[in-house]
């Protein structure tokens, strides 16, 4: 009896092996790997979906990234994808897509409806990067810098921290954008990818309130913004006063803030920033001068720039850094907290102090 049962099980197991037909019944050579997804406003229909497909090649060389771009207009994104799937000879696989780009025209009050498809789908990674395309997602997908080794590589690497971090490319992930779309007291933002010649550049950030695009931060403020919302990275500060001109590379950046609400007075956001940097260029020898004075010039500069940035965000009533969440985390007034905060934020004064420390003047005095 036991032996017969054993044999039966053996046969069953061998039969089960026939069920193993490879990658989910579709082999890897029957799949097209989508590396980037772009959505634009369509001309005739509502949306235009563009996909960047990687074409597998046996050699990986700079400038030889083989890719194909397919696009389709439809009234819904899933419809467009279905139509696209019939255009190519292989199954579209979204699991390896690393970046999701939205056309600038779609950054309107419908953005949550537009992106619903990507948040709902289980085949897309939550850690996918998200960006806003200027002027259109399709053009950004088509761009392929000459140094590119793997399709869409340069676009993806622009946002990762694995390469030497650029403080101008502020990373935003799919899940974090979704979080910010709902969170009270923390507003969404997206990096802006703009077309530049055959390539593209990433140096602006678009700030949203929960509904629409409110302002775009330009280079000069982007790097300051990036220090506040993401892991700090190196950035350059150039200052000028009277005859003195020099540039600093900021290598360490820490900040803390507290929100004070004194009675009868406007609320204050007291922010203390601590930075350390190295002088990169100067129009005169600085080593023998009083470093304290030199530091003060840069401190003033950084203070003013941060004040401008925060005040312009306040003017638009947007809060991507999460001051509101910070306030609500520390004050417990129940449900009316949120209204209270909005009132406080509109009246808030920013008091910023920067403590800068110059580490060295480089290898010359």
């Amino acid at each position, binding site marked *: 009896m036991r032996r017969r049962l054993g044999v039966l099980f053996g046969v069953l197991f061998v039969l089960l092996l026939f069920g193993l037909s490879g990658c989910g019944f579709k082999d890897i050579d029957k799949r097209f790997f989508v590396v980037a997804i772009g959505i634009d406003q369509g001309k005739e229909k509502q949306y235009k979906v563009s996909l960047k497909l990687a074409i597998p090649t046996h050699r990986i060389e700079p400038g030889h990234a083989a890719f194909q771009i397919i696009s389709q207009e439809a009234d819904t994104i899933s419809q467009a994808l279905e139509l696209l799937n019939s255009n190519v000879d292989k199954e579209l696989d979204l699991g390896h897509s690393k970046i999701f780009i939205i056309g600038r025209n779609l950054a309107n009050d419908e953005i949550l409806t537009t992106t619903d498809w990507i948040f709902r789908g289980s085949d897309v990674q939550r*850690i996918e990067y998200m960006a806003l395309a200027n002027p259109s997602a399709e053009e950004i997908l088509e761009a392929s810098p000459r140094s590119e080794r793997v399709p869409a590589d340069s676009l993806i690497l622009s946002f990762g921290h694995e390469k030497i971090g650029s403080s101008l490319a502020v990373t935003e992930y799919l*899940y974090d954008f*979704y*979080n910010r779309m709902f969170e009270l007291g923390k507003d969404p933002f997206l990096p802006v990818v703009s077309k530049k010649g055959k390539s593209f550049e990433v140096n602006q950030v678009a700030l949203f309130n929960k509904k629409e695009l409110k302002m775009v931060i330009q280079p000069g403020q982007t790097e300051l913004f990036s220090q506040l919302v993401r*892991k700090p990275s190196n950035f350059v500060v150039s200052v000028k006063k009277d005859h003195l001109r020099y540039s600093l590379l900021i290598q360490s950046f820490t900040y803390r803030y507290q929100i004070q609400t004194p009675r009868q007075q406007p609320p204050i956001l007291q922010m203390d920033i601590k930075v350390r940097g190295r002088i990169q260029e100067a129009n005169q020898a600085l080593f023998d001068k009083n470093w304290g004075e030199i530091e003060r010039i840069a401190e003033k500069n950084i203070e003013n720039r941060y004040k401008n940035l925060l005040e312009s965000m306040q003017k638009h009533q947007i809060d991507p850094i999460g001051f509101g*969440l910070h306030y609500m985390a520390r004050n417990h007034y129940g449900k009316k907290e949120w209204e209270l905060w909005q009132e406080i934020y509109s009246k808030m004064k920013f008091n910023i102090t920067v403590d800068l420390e110059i580490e060295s003047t480089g290898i010359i005095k």
Partner: protein
Amino acid sequence: MMNRYYFYPFILCMLVNTIFYVPVILVEYRFQGAWLAILFAIVFGSTLAYLFTRTMRQFPGQGLPEIFEQRLPVMLSSVISFSLGLLWIVAGGVVLIAFSYIAKMFLNPSIPIEQLLFCLIIVSCYAATRSTAAINYLSEIILIFILPIVVFILFKALQSETFEWNAIMVTTEYIFEIPSWNTLATAMFCFTGYMTLIVLNRFFTWRISLTHFWLVPVTGAITLVSTFLIPIGIHGTQAVENYLYLWVNTVDSLRMEFGFIERVVFYYLMVYVAVSLLFISMSWHIGTELVSSIFRGQSKRYRWIIVGVVGIATWWYGRLTNEKQLIMVAEQWFMIRFMMELLLVLLMVLIGRRKQ
């Protein structure tokens, strides 16, 4: 040293809670008493576990049916065994169906759910009919392999760049809200590992030592708090309630730049294949042992029949149900388990008193 087997079912129940919709339910009530429910659950859960274990260790090597045999009328003991058995069988079934949904969603969207259920059920049915000792050894082997990965995932989540402590602080405002019974029952699931003693006590032929019992409240607290708070830290206080597969999505929001696999979610799914199968096997083993104990003397013969019926029923239900219904079933299950557990512990404490 053999005492360590006492803790494996606890750890297993704590691990399986992310599949069993515990975090989804807790997060839904994050402003309505989830915090206090967690606190109560830690106190009540470990108290019940302590009382129950202290009673069960007076009957070394005896499962619930053997203890009841001379002390309760046949009818009553049959009813209790049958309902407890059914409770555990349903638990295994819910986890099995829930996991097959996750597997279909994230591992292989093109597989028909029938096939997936079939494969899982075959493996679980086979494992459930093994001996109690084999199940215990199996859980030790599996837990040793996966616990480091679980700890790594927790560490990785706290390290996340976008982890927002402020969001967690916002929920602390609602720390003194009175929880509903439902939330409390859900939170207490993490401590339900001691219930496995109703059958697994047959394995413990010695007096279980309670010197290291403090491990139970400590690990339970860590598990419950991280199950509840890490998703809030990553998805924020508002968006977190929109996710159906909360923990799969939370883990999918972690990135490992320098790992062999960039998406941490695949480590998680790998771990949870093992955890779910182990939990299903253990709960079905307990279920079949209890139900078959009704057929005195011939229980061995009926074991396969019961497992077969359970497998077919789960397969049918898995085909017919949907996620919305399954969450509701899970919620009801927590409530029923909560009440049955209270009654059982009470009964056992009384029986233990009388024996002394």
